[in-house]
């Protein structure tokens, strides 16, 4: 089943034999899994123990898979290295290795599918579609590729094409729960909740344990703003309803993510944080959970906690503008000026109209001790420029807690001090002038009366 998660990829890859006609995994020796892999991306973190970094491709019909070509040894080695790279969030390395696998074995349908996954994450949509498609050309009933291809098309606004593709597959795979669940997901993306629910229910009738169909139902309720029903569904998946109805898939990270998002919307911050944390413990690749959780931490002043989350987010989604924006600010708060500048300048280039980046750059230039490549005067000028730009992009609104004007004033004051100091320094280089007259001694101050501020006793409670 697509969603039945693989708890320990390395162990299972070594231990599993040929299952239901699936390709035989390559012979492994210690360290072989990463032999061909590039070194991990800078700062890459190993996934937590028990994390899920790959799925199974056992057919959802409950029947044995159709005969499928086995991956040759050379491709298998590259494939394994590709998955190791993916596990570390090294998408470029994963792409290289998986491409190598497809070149070494043009029938390696799993490699084409997994390559599509990586390309989709790299926002190479056309390539991803081609790779998914190729996997289904090699193995026409290959469910992971069918599901991913159709959903990607729907996300690109081609829901009609996706349904046409799925209808054709359904005719030849009438028992597949994955195909019908994909139809549900596509319909939901198209905004047709009624059809989405019907298809997802149908998928569950074909395979009652098929978690993606359950998630499709919950997600459709969420999209249709039936939040209670979505939470109901998620409770059934994650917690169950008593001993008679145990949880259907208690380690489902997508369900945790969805529940976290709903709880966030409902203002239940502690519960949302817990769900995002649990989701990430299972699936560290969930960029959305990382960004939301990191934002919570940043908002409460915990840049140390937010930074690794955001570093992981940009590894798995290097084009994620908001992850870069927040990471830039996290670095600034940690005093990592150079990294902060790099991230924020990247955001500025990627989306110059994003007002927040100008504010954050302004803070970086104004408050950092030394910004590489700039003199203190230049940094102050840049700060003023960035704050002005922020104001232009986001005009002050009544009642807003906007401090931009105050920051500009401070930047100008700082500039004045720097200019004066520079002028003084230049003057000091001139021939020495006559010594100043000795200042008169200050008049001794009278003892002051006690303060009249009605000082309340400061309570150290909480």
């Amino acid at each position, binding site marked *: 089943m697509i969603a039945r998660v693989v708890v320990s990829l390395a162990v*299972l890859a070594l231990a599993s034999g040929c*299952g239901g006609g699936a390709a035989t995994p390559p012979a492994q020796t210690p360290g072989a899994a990463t032999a061909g892999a590039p070194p991990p991306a800078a700062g890459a973190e190993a996934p937590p123990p028990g994390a899920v*970094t790959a799925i199974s491709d056992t057919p959802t019909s409950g029947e044995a898979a159709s005969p499928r070509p086995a991956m040759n040894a050379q491709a298998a080695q590259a494939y394994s290295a590709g998955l190791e790279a993916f596990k570390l969030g090294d998408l470029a390395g994963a792409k290289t290795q998986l491409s190598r696998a497809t070149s070494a074995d043009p029938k390696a349908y799993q490699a084409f599918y997994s390559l599509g996954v990586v390309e989709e994450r790299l926002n190479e949509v056309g390539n991803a579609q081609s790779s998914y498609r190729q996997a289904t050309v090699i193995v026409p009933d290959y469910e992971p590729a069918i599901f991913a291809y159709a959903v990607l098309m729907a996300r690109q606004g081609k829901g009609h094409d996706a349904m046409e593709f799925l209808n054709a597959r359904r005719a030849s795979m009438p028992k597949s729960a994955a195909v019908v669940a994909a139809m549900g997901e596509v319909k939901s993306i198209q905004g047709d909740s009624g059809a989405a629910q019907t298809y997802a229910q149908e998928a569950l009738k074909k395979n009652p344990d098929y978690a993606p169909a*359950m998630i499709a139902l919950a997600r459709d309720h969420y999209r249709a703003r039936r939040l209670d029903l979505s939470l109901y569904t998620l409770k059934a998946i994650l917690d169950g309803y008593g001993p008679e109805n145990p949880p259907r898939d208690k380690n489902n990270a997508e369900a945790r993510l969805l529940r976290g998002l709903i709880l966030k919307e409902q203002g239940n911050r502690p519960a949302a944080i817990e769900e995002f944390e649990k989701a990430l413990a299972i*699936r560290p690749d969930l960029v959305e959970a990382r960004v939301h959780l990191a934002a919570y931490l940043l908002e409460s002043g915990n840049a140390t906690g937010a930074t690794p989350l955001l570093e992981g987010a940009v590894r798995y989604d290097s084009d994620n503008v908001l992850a870069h*924006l927040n990471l830039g600010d996290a670095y600034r*708060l940690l005093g990592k000026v150079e990294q902060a500048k790099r991230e924020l300048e990247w955001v500025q280039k990627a989306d110059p109209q994003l007002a*927040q980046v100008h504010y954050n750059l302004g803070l970086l230039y104004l408050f950092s001790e030394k910004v590489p490549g700039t003199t203190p005067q230049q940094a102050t000028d840049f700060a003023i420029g960035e704050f002005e730009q922020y104001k232009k992009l986001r005009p002050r609104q009544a009642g807003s807690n906007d401090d931009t004007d105050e920051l500009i004033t401070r930047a100008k004051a700082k500039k004045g001090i720097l200019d004066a100091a520079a002028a003084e320094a230049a003057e000091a280089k001139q021939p020495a002038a006559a010594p100043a007259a000795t200042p008169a001694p200050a008049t001794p101050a009278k003892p002051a009366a006690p303060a009249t501020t009605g000082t309340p006793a400061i309570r150290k409670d909480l």
Partner: protein
Amino acid sequence: MRVTRFLFLSCLVLSTIAGTAAAQSKSEGKYETRVKYLKNAYDALAGSYVLFFNYPRAAETFDKISATARFKQDERREASRQALTLYSSLGDRTAMARARQNFVALGASPKEVAEADFIIATAELKRWDRYSPDTGANATARRAAQRAMDDYYTANKARDPAAQYAVQAAYWSAVTRHVVQPREAVKYWQITIEAFEKWKRLAPLKDGKSSALSSLEAKYAAEGEFTLLTQEIEDKFDYETGHHRFKGTSVEVVNQYTAQAAIAKGWYDKLQHVNDAYLSPEWTIAAMSRQGSLYDSLRTGLYNVRPPALKMFDAKTEALLKRAENSDDADLQAKADEARVRVQEAWRNKRDQELDSADRIMIDRYATSVVLAKRYNVSNPAVVRAIRRLAFATEVIGEAKMKQFAGGVKELNYTEGMFQRMRPGQVSTPAPQGMPEPLPVLVGGAP
């Protein structure tokens, strides 16, 4: 296929038993057994629908159970409660009303009825998206939610069993107004606080304290009290809204300041009530920051007082001094000069002393709110403001004093330039999708 079979079997058993049970005579002695089987079958069918996430059918089945007179009353009541909850989530008003009627008729307790009525009322609330613009369907949904919450509160405010839900209804009555016109929500925030006071009295005790403390209702009431106070402070006290523009002679300025300091103390105590009365971390932290802001306003007013608003002497003394200074008498001139210096210095000393005193409180409250926000993972605009003001204060009062005042704040571990460095930037999150990209596939089959 286990669940499908289960569903099929449940239906089969139901049709068989339902068809024959009625025909059975009680005297046969099998009646009770058959009814028990029938109930089990219905429960299984409802459970199967829940398992299949088919909530409309699950609600219908619970409804059917509640309407079957052969079943025990408490079982029927529980089924009608389940049906009511599901119909509420599905937004089926007619079915909700029917389920509620059954629930009451089946002997639901007053507290259960109060809860059921609140579930029905919240069906309208669920249609409203608080964070979307108040336009079109969302504006209509907001007004409908407001009506439902107002009606619930009005109908239940005097009923003790509904006390807990009355707090929630009052809160949403306030929020649905506050998002569009904060001033119109004032009355409803007050109602929320009053409703909470009542609930606090009625709620069961836990470890010797009211279980209402630290609850959701406590959070709602704390938000209400904080919102009311902060609006009032904004209107009557904040420097940003034009207060503390001291003027007159130095003595008059000090007197004005002293009077304002007494008022600040009053606001401080009122904010302290938010901290003490509800035990809500989020609003305690916000209230602490707001306590700091009182002394921030006060010290800003004093710090900014300058001539011509500030005069060192009253008109009569000034005239005398001027006359002495313009006289040809060197002794008189020296005395006048000395008087000016002495008064100037006394003013400065007094001002600095008052500033220190206010700064100490301001920094303690702001910094403590920052520490607690991190400890409890809480964010609030009041905390963001606290950090900004601490950063500003560092520049105004200097590192030495900041170190002295902030050094005493537990867990802060103040280091030089800390508040400037931690000044928060703009954090953004993407619009929620809840649909991640797929994972690659494991070669080697399923575990």
